[in-house]
Structures are given as structure tokens and as C-alpha cells.
């Protein structure tokens, strides 16, 4: 790893280790905003790694941010850190100021896209954003909105919206924000990628899943070594060993798939690598949750044990920004359209195109 990533890894691991405690996680599930954690993240500069230095950011790349976002997944950090990083990047690319405080993003689909209108030269947004991560806690949201059949990225102030709180399976906030002709700022359509939220949203969830899968592995290995049954640690049973070996392999695979996507994002259009990462991390997520719970037995099914903080997030993050089948279908169509003979050359071409830059 590069020196910067080493430092980031140390910083973020220490910070989450200290502040993303069980108490914090439980309190967050009951609706408390973890202010101390967020403040520490902000003060360490971890909320704006991609923002240019002139804007008060670190001016780093996605590959560096990977370390932070994966760790957020590993520690089940109950804050919209990945969302803030992505929103900040989009705003920075548009040359816009980055608002203070937590930011979030909204992934809209055809059925749920708010519309834009202009009044007195100001752009305004109307409509619902469903299931916005930390919609109630974030000060601003970057979303897509429709105008005359055109899709635009906009920045809105969440205090202009009516908020109906909700939760995903992991009890992370997924709130509905309803706007009625609220003022917005449009992002630059030349510099901020149009598919930025759906695509890069999938990328950050892949990294978070890789982190959470790694957590399930660590917990399961620890438990298997500690837990004695039939007179010996269950780690001695071949069936347990084989399951954990499988989990370890999938964990390493998910991490590299996600990391590859983040690296590609620094270099070129990362759509192919992000699709691969979401598929691989999502498949690993399902298997990891099943194996880790099987190894843990009944204790892992209790709220008191910490395993579920990872596994419920894995289940929640799998479908967000598109599940495996959706991304696999896109990959499959792309590859089929090119034909089998192009498969390998296209694959090697992508890698060398990235490396050459």
C-alpha cells in the first residue's frame, strides 16, 4: 500500500475502534446521531478525502478513499461517511462549495424522480426522495431530478424537505424527503458524471460490503477458536474449517474486486469494474452472512452478540444501488454484444489502459 493509504488505514481504524463502539451502534439504531464520532471524522479530514485542497479537502484519490469506506463497513459506522465523501466529490467536480456537516445522496429511479422547475431564475425541486440514507441527519442531499426529459444532478437543503424517517434491515436511517418547490443548485453537467449517484453509489456499497464481510470473518474465526463443543474448540472440526476457508477466500475476493473498482475510478470510466465489484461483493455478502451465522450458532442470532451489526448491513447493502443480477445483466449484455472472441482482449485492454495512465 502507499504511504498515504497506510496512514489513512491507521487513522480510521483507531478512530472507529475508539468511537464506533457497540454503545454507539446501539444508540444509533435507536435514533441517536453519533455526534462525537462525526466530529472526530471531520476533524481528521476523513469526510473530504476527495475534495481539492483549495476547498479544504485532502485532494486524494478514490483508491485512498477506499481504505476509509471499507473501514466504515468493517466497523458498521453508523454515519453517512461514504455518502458524504461521494457527495463532496460530485460537488467538488462541479466547482461548488462543499457545505459543512454530513451530506447524503439519493438514488432515484424512473418511478421516483422529482422534477425541476424554474421560477424567478431559480431552480426548484418538487417530489419525493425515498429511502435517503440519513436523510434526517444530513444537512444536504445530492440527487438526480428530471427536467424536460433530461436528468440532472442537484444539491438540495434537507431542511427544505418534509422528512418521514424510516429504517433498512440494519436499522440504518433510510428517510423519505418530500420537496415542494424547494430551491436547489444544479451540478455542472460537464464535470460531474451524470450516472454519478447510481454508479458510484454501487461502488461505495461494494467497499462497505467488503469491509463487513471481513468483519464477519474475523468474528467467526475468533468464535471458532474460543468456543468449545464436544470437548474441543469447534475450529478443530473440518466442516467449520472448510466453511471459514470459503469465507476467507470470498472476503479477500470481495476486497480486491472493490479495490479494483476504486482504482479504476481514478483512471477511467469505471463502469465495468464497478459492476464486477457489486456482483462479487454482493455474492460474498450472502455467503458470508450464512457461513458466519452457521459457525456462531444460536448466540449469533441474538441482538446481544455483535455479529448482526455486520450481517444485517450485508443484507441491506446488497440490493442498494442495484443487486447482483441487475449489474450482472448489464455486464452480460455488454460482453455478449462484443462476442466471445473479444472477451479476453477487452479484459486485458482495460487493465493496461488503466496502468498506462
Amino acid at each position, binding site marked *: 500500500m502507499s504511504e498515504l493509504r497506510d496512514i489513512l488505514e491507521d487513522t480510521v481504524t483507531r478512530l472507529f475502534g475508539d468511537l464506533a463502539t457497540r454503545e454507539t451502534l446501539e444508540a444509533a439504531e435507536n435514533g441517536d446521531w453519533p455526534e462525537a464520532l462525526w466530529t472526530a471524522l471531520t476533524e481528521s479530514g476523513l469526510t473530504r478525502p476527495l475534495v481539492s485542497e483549495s476547498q479544504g479537502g485532502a485532494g486524494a484519490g478514490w483508491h485512498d478513499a477506499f481504505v476509509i469506506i471499507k473501514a466504515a463497513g468493517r466497523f458498521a459506522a453508523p454515519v453517512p461517511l461514504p455518502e458524504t465523501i461521494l457527495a463532496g466529490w460530485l460537488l467538488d467536480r462541479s466547482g461548488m462549495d462543499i457545505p459543512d456537516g454530513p451530506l447524503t445522496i439519493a438514488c432515484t429511479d424512473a418511478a421516483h424522480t422529482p422534477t425541476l422547475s424554474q421560477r424567478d431564475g431559480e431552480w426548484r425541486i418538487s417530489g419525493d426522495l425515498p*429511502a435517503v440514507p440519513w436523510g434526517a441527519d444530513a444537512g444536504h442531499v445530492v440527487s438526480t431530478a428530471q427536467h424536460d426529459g433530461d436528468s440532472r444532478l442537484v444539491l438540495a437543503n434537507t431542511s427544505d424537505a418534509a422528512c*418521514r*424517517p*424510516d*429504517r*433498512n*434491515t440494519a*436499522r440504518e436511517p*433510510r428517510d*423519505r424527503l418530500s420537496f415542494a418547490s424547494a430551491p436547489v443548485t444544479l451540478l455542472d453537467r460537464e464535470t460531474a458524471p451524470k450516472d454519478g449517484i447510481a454508479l458510484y453509489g454501487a461502488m461505495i456499497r461494494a467497499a462497505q460490503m467488503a469491509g463487513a464481510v471481513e468483519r464477519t470473518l474475523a468474528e467467526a474465526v475468533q468464535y471458532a477458536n474460543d*468456543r*468449545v*463443543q*464436544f470437548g474441543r474448540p469447534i475450529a478443530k*472440526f473440518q*466442516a467449520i474449517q472448510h466453511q471459514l476457508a470459503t469465507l476467507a477466500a470470498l472476503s479477500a475476493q470481495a476486497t480486491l474486486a472493490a479495490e479494483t473498482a476504486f482504482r479504476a475510478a481514478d483512471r477511467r470510466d469505471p463502469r465495468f469494474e464497478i459492476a464486477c465489484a457489486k456482483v462479487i461483493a454482493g455474492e460474498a455478502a*450472502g455467503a458470508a*452472512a*450464512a457461513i458466519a*451465522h*452457521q459457525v456462531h*450458532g*444460536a448466540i*449469533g*442470532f*441474538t*441482538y*446481544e*452478540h455483535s*455479529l*448482526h451489526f455486520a*450481517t*444485517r448491513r450485508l*443484507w*441491506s447493502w*446488497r*440490493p*442498494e444501488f*442495484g*443487486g*447482483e*443480477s*441487475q449489474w450482472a445483466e448489464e455486464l452480460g449484455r455488454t460482453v455478449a454484444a462484443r462476442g466471445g472472441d473479444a472477451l479476453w482482449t477487452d479484459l486485458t485492454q482495460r487493465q493496461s489502459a488503466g496502468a498506462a495512465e
Partner: protein
Amino acid sequence: MPEIQFEPCDLPPETETIREEVRDFLREALAEYPASRLAKSWAEGDAGFSRKVAQRGWIGMTWPKKYGGQERSALERYVMLEEMLAMGAPVGLHWIADRQSGPLILRFGTEAQRQEFLPPITRGEAFFCIGMSEPDSGSDLASVRTRAEKVDGGWVVNGTKVWTSGAHRCDFMIGLFRTSGAPEDRHEGLSQFLVDMKMPGIEIRPIINMTGDHDFNQVHFEDVFLADDRLIGGTGDGWKQVVAELAFERAGPERYMSNIPMIRQLINASTQAPGERAAVGIGRMVAQLATLREMSLSVAGMQNAGKDPALEGTVVKELGVTFEQGIPGIAQDLTDAEPLLEHGDEFGKSLAFVTQASVSYSLRGGTREVVRGIIARGLGLR
């Protein structure tokens, strides 16, 4: 001849009567239940519902009339049960008594115990839980530490049971306690007792599931006095009796049917003319479902014919649990649903529940490891 043999079973025509009765009953009794509650299936208990079932004579329905039973056939009970499960009826409260505790008392209990306990069970007035697992025992059920010391006129119990499903809502526990020897003696020196959960010295502490539900409990015993007539079966026969009881627990249709309500919702969520991928996914699921039902029926039929399909029952559990556990993943894959717990639709709420709950399916009634080990022994692997 293979060691595992499923004989096909034709249900006798009279079972169709009770099938229709149960359907009519459930149509009314479950009318107000939201789909996401039915998705919880037999993990859910409802005392009012249980009493309605009792009024129909469907708790302990195969037992002798003198104990409150209806002397119906085992296959009629089977049909009643599969209809309950197919709808996701909340049978959780009376379920253990009907499936395990009642048959145990009938088989090993004294006449006085039968008269005392069976009629209230059939009236839906006595709910049972099972006190078997202990902290640190896991799949190793025989490593019981909770001790019943013989005293004048009875026994004094000290120790802790854990994973006791529904203890906080039940009236009685069938407890497995050590009456002699040490945990290292394992199967030796264990006995079963009927425990009134209101006895002084019993403390029930909830264990909250990751779903947020309260089903499991820790049950602490501190100098709990049980009179001599609370012993069930012979002193030291506890393990033998438990093995028989686990066989009841392992072989029923609940081993493949827990997620039928979710399947119903999934098919309803697809269009009537699904795409190729959804059609194939649904078709494979239905082929499993139809075949597992034949297998489960076969076990019931063989039991009814006086055979001992223990190995076949274990095979149904192995395949049934694999099937059940796969359903949330299929539903997730085919719908890409993102469940919301507060204001989300019923499908999403159901999916959120079964996704989490399904991990426990391969733990209850014997873990996957235990189940496969039993099959391997049945195959004569040495």
C-alpha cells in the same frame, strides 16, 4: 436396497374433510393478520388464536378422548398442520405442547400426569417450553449441568437453561436435569421433569433476537423445589426420552414449510407472465416444494403405518432447511427489494424478517452439522 427409502403416501379421503375445515377456519381467523406477520409462521404465537384452535379440537387431536383428545388419525393431524403452516398461522404458543410435550407425557407420563396436563393442553390453557440447552452446551445437548438434587418428597433444582423458546409466555417447561453424575457422564444420569413456570426460584431473562423480537430466554433455577410427581418417566431415563422427543421435533412438515408465506408473496409479486429468469427461479422453487411435500407426506405415512422413518425424517430436515434458507435469497434476487421496516410495504417487511430468521433454521432442531452426521451414520460410514 438403499438405506433411505421414501414410500409414497396417498392421503386417505377423510383427510380432505379436515383440510377444508381448517381452510375455512383460517380464512376467518387470519383475516386481520398482515402478510408480514404471517411471514413469521410458527415463530409467531398468539394466545387468542391458540384458544380458537383448541375450541376446534385441533390441539392434541390424536390423543385419547379421555384426555381431551379427539382420537383423530395422525394423517388428519398432519393435514391440519400443513394447512396451518401453509397459511403461516401463528401456532407458536401451543405448538410445542401439541408436537412434543403432550406426546411425551402420553408416552412416559403417569396416569395422574396425563390427567393433570393433557386436558388443559387440548383446551389451549397450558403452553409448554423445552428446557434442554444450557450455556456452553450448543449442539452438545448431553453436557447438562443443571442439577436436580433428591430431597425428601421431591427434588431441588439449581442451574440455568438457555435458548428456551417462549419461556416467558408458557405455563410449563419440560426440563432436562442431571439427577446423578457429572457433566462428563453425558447421557447418564439425566432425567426429565414437568416444571410449573410460576414456581418460586425461577427467573426468566429475555434474550432479544437480532430481528428485535423476543422469543428466546435464559431460565435460572435457584433452589426450585419439584415434588416427586413432577419427574416424568424413569430417573436417569431422560436422555433416552429426549432422543425420542427430538425425533418428533425433526420430522414434521415445519421443516420445509416455514417460508411458504414468503413464497406466496413472491409469486404474487411477480407478474402473471414473468420473464424467463423469474419463471425459471419460481419453477425450480416449486419443483422443490412439491417434492419436499411428497417426502414429508411419505414420512407421515410411514409413521402412520407403524414404521420408524427416523432417517427419512432427518433427510427431510436436511433438504427442507436448505430449501427454506434459500427462499429469502431467491426473493431478494428476483425482486431487488429494499425493505423498509417502518413504512415499507408488506413484502419488504416480510423479506427483512425471513432473511434474518432463516439463518436460525439450520440451528433449531439439530444443526446442519448434527443432521448430516446422523445421515452419514445411517449410510454406514464408519
